[in-house]
């Protein structure tokens, strides 16, 4: 089996992400299993990219890499939407906080406090 450069690079990246996640989340057994699974599946597809073609063909996409790209775009888009709506909620809370503060501190400028 010939290992290409990109396979080495991707394997290292996936391993690093898995280690990072493990350090950040190291809580329950469930997390470790999930990270381990993610790691294993990722490495498997990197080392045997032809297997993704079979899945792609099954759903009607010509190449495994394309299928991966499509799902990745969808997933990222979904993530952006979630993040943005979270951001809006945070901003509204923050506005409320600043507003209440300013209402409490209202002054009448012709009167000495």
């Amino acid at each position, binding site marked *: 089996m010939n290992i290409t450069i990109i396979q080495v690079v991707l394997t290292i990246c996936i391993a690093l992400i898995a280690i990072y996640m493990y350090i950040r989340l190291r809580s329950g057994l469930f997390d470790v299993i999930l990270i381990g699974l993610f790691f294993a599946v990722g490495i498997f597809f990197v080392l045997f990219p032809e297997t993704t073609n079979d899945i792609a063909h099954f759903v009607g996409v010509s190449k495994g890499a394309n299928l991966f790209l499509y799902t990745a775009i969808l997933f990222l888009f979904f993530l952006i939407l979630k993040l943005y709506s979270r951001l809006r909620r945070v901003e509204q809370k923050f506005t409320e906080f600043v*507003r209440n503060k300013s209402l409490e501190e209202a002054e009448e400028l012709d009167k000495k406090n």
Partner: protein
Amino acid sequence: MIRKTVTEVLEKGYNIVVVDDCSKDGSKKQVTGLPVYYLRHRVNMGQGAALQTGIDFAKKKGAKYFITFDADGQHDSNDIPGMIEFLEKEKVDVVFGSRFLPGSKTNVSRYRSVALNFGRYINFLVSGIMLSDSFNGFRLLSKSAAEKITLTENRMAHPAEFLLLTAEKKLKYREYPVAIHYSDYSRGKGLKNRDGIKILFEILLYKIFR
């Protein structure tokens, strides 16, 4: 400049709430000594947020009518009494100031007119309300309108939000011709035409995520 604006409105006998949106140019010093309520945001939040803060405060004080009035001198306090009279006579909840109705004295530039004209179609698409001037900051709200409308768009999409809420809450509204005096000062302070793209984007996001 804000002192001049505030003084002119004070002379007409109205109560004023000045909302300082964390300005760095010493706005407070300018209005010190005048009989106004002064509120300051500790953090810069945007025009929409400042308007809502002012309205909230006036509600707490038991105001009967609420006028939003830009501080840069572009509005004319002489329009206020007529506007209130108009609201009472027409029995509406909201009066929108318009610089494009007959009877308005306005020195708006050609390009600005085109941008505003485009903008009012956008606001119409968002809200279903077509005004002759949908980005005018000069508005009059009745007490019930002030209770029903709460702006959550902190920055520049609030005119669209205001219209949408007016429609949703089934408030009655009319337009009233008001003067706009653009000066070099207000041109420096206010929006540039190129801000239109930003506003458009904000309105779009508002419509999707509200």
